[in-house]
């Protein structure tokens, strides 16, 4: 302390000075950066940043970045898009803390969850719809909150039945079954012939795949978790019992692994030639062409089977949103307009093998679209017509998102096929969970 005493400073003074200096530096750094752009759509030399969903096709990232860069070049700035597998967690951090990237690609019904922190894109979305034959209903359900568009429905990821044509031929079936009961029949024949079996994921470890099967089957039998009002829980019904019965019959003839698959487990089994059918995006076929050419040659795709209520399918939605904390809202809107222009979106849809399928009706008949140009993808046109968001026939909402995240419908089926509960018990548990979520 001698040196401090010589300067006339006490230890307390020294500490106070140090703390004061530190706080001054920290507070100075805490100010707003003041880099908001000038009015209009010019970036004024700044960068737009965005968080995007990573795809199994690397060319999808390259194309989107290239299209964004081309736009930025004519708007005096740059666009930096980051593609990540766990982009949803990154978006949660950015939106909840109201700091960070300007825009992001939302998943499923996140537009409803983050609605109050997203920019209103109503004018843009309405004009895109008008220019392209109109939006499918599911696009509005996913992105319109309280009458305002909070995100641009970019595209949906088509979930389809991946099936082995050669194995089906061995049991006398040349076309994929049109109905769920037809699929049960095919599954039984494959099992009895001791061939690789049907394997539709139904486990907590594979939430997106399982939900796709569970909701689609439920709806195609006329059942629903909630009424149109979005409040009255409707899961305890004769239609639900019928859907569960079909799932029980299907599971009895299926590969036993269906209760333990994660999102990639069914891909691996199919690529190894161990199963004959599984639900998935077209990622299996994409991978098979490179790593399992025999499987690629002998497989095809089909839409989900129909039930008594027709073809109904859960839609995996991808939408573009601008975060309200962004200082570059007008340029971001203009960028979205550019990316959704037919010249750009059409190219994306062409290379994406239905991973990015536009929700605009005007794209259905374009000859360059994968469902019109690739034999193995024929029949997938207009899947969105029977597509719905979780919670249908009620509106997509925070509650329906919560029920989806709780995996209530998936667990209802999974409990029964794993023998942990009877159909009645399982429906009662699901009903209780849904009543807690919907409050009705």
């Amino acid at each position, binding site marked *: 302390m001698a040196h401090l005493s010589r300067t006339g400073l006490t230890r307390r003074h020294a500490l106070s000075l140090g703390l004061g200096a530190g706080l001054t530096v920290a507070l100075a750094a805490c100010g707003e950066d003041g880099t908001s752009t000038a009015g209009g759509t010019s970036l004024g030399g700044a960068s737009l940043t965005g968080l995007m969903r990573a795809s199994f096709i690397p060319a999808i990232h390259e194309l989107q970045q290239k299209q964004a860069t081309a736009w930025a070049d004519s708007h005096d700035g740059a666009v930096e898009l980051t593609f990540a*597998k766990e982009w949803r967690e990154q978006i949660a951090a950015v939106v909840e803390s109201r700091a960070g990237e300007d825009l992001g690609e939302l998943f499923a019904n996140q537009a409803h969850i983050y609605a109050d922190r997203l920019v209103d894109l109503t004018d843009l979305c309405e004009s895109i719809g008008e220019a392209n034959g109109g939006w499918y209903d599911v696009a509005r359900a996913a992105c319109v909150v309280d009458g305002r568009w909070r995100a641009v429905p970019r595209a949906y990821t088509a979930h389809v039945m991946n099936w082995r044509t050669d194995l089906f031929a061995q049991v006398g079936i040349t076309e994929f079954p049109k109905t769920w009961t037809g699929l049960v029949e095919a599954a039984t024949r494959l099992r009895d012939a001791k061939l690789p079996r049907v394997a539709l994921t139904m486990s907590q470890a594979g939430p997106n795949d399982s939900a796709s099967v569970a909701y689609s089957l439920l709806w195609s039998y006329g059942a629903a978790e909630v009424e149109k009002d979005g409040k009255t829980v409707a899961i305890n019904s004769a239609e639900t019992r019928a859907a569960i019965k079909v799932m029980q019959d299907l599971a009895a003839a299926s590969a036993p692994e269906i209760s333990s698959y994660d999102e990639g487990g069914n891909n691996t089994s199919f690529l190894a030639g161990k199963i004959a059918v599984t639900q998935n995006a077209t990622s299996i076929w994409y991978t098979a062409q490179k790593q399992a050419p025999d499987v690629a040659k002998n497989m095809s795709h089909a839409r989900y089977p129909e039930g008594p209520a027709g073809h109904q399918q859960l839609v995996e939605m991808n939408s573009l949103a601008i975060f309200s904390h962004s200082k570059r809202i007008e340029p971001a809107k203009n960028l979205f307009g550019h990316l959704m222009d037919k010249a750009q979106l059409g190219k994306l849809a062409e290379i994406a093998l239905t991973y990015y399928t536009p929700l605009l009706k005007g794209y259905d008949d374009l000859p360059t679209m994968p469902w019109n140009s690739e034999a193995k993808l024929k029949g997938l046109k207009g899947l969105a017509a029977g597509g719905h968001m979780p919670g249908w026939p009620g509106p997509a909402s925070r509650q329906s998102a919560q029920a989806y995240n709780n995996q209530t419908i998936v667990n209802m089926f999974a409990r029964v096929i794993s023998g942990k509960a009877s159909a009645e018990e399982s429906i009662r548990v699901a009903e209780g969970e849904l009543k807690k979520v919907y409050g009705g």
Partner: protein
Amino acid sequence: MTTVSGRAARPPLPAPPPRTGRLLRRLKLGRRLLITVTMTLFTVFTLFPFVWMALTSLRTGSDLYRVADRPFSVSGLTLEHFRELLTETKFLTWTLNSLIVALSASAIALVIGVPAAYSLGRLRYRGGAVVGVIVFSTYLLPPALLFIPMNVVVNRLHLGNTLGALILVYLTFLVPFIAWMLSSYFQSLPVELAEAARIDGASRLRAMMVIDLPLVLPGVVSVFFFAFTLCWQEYLYALTFVRSTDKQPVAVGLVNALQVGDVFAWGQLMGGALLGALPVVIIFSFLMDYYLSGLTAGAVKG
């Protein structure tokens, strides 16, 4: 009679009876056998993940999907996954990022944590015990609870999407960890040594630096290694605070680039995990030697 070293020669031990000798030999043999079997099992258990990673990273594409049928046989080996990992991804950049963050954060945390540990372990002041509990409680707070408020702070400081964000945020759990771990080392030291130095005119700071710190050096080395490992394997903060691909550490970069949706690039993932573990193994090997020498030096001090 004395030996050259001056110690009295021990009288020869009486030979054990033949039955006792055989029993002793059997006991020794049994002990050796038990140790050998235990160590073999432990070695297999420890090394199996690495062997599995190596095997998977060397399998050809088609073999990767037949693992369940033939877990240990391969139709051919390839270095293609390593080539793709090193040339088609930013693996080397991610590894460098991890090294920068882990070394910087651990070093800074030591600079702050050692005096804090000294304070907790050696100084007696009002509320000292409460401070110790608070420091420990800070370490126990789960990252999932903190990452959103921390993201606000990180962005306010204009550190968003930089390695600086990770270095700053990692200090929030490294400093309490180091302070808590080292405080018990300081507590175990005899206070008389430092008191003697104080009587000889050394300031408290000098006594800490010259007398106490060398004695806890093995502990410092150990906590540095653990701090480095904590940084190296951290995932949630790295995922949410550093979004740009070229700025991510290896744990996040690997997963984001090589596991996309339901498509896993198993060969590259396992190759990356194997190579990504190397820096930790190398540093551990280096610090183990240093740790042992520090321990010996500490034992003869004073």
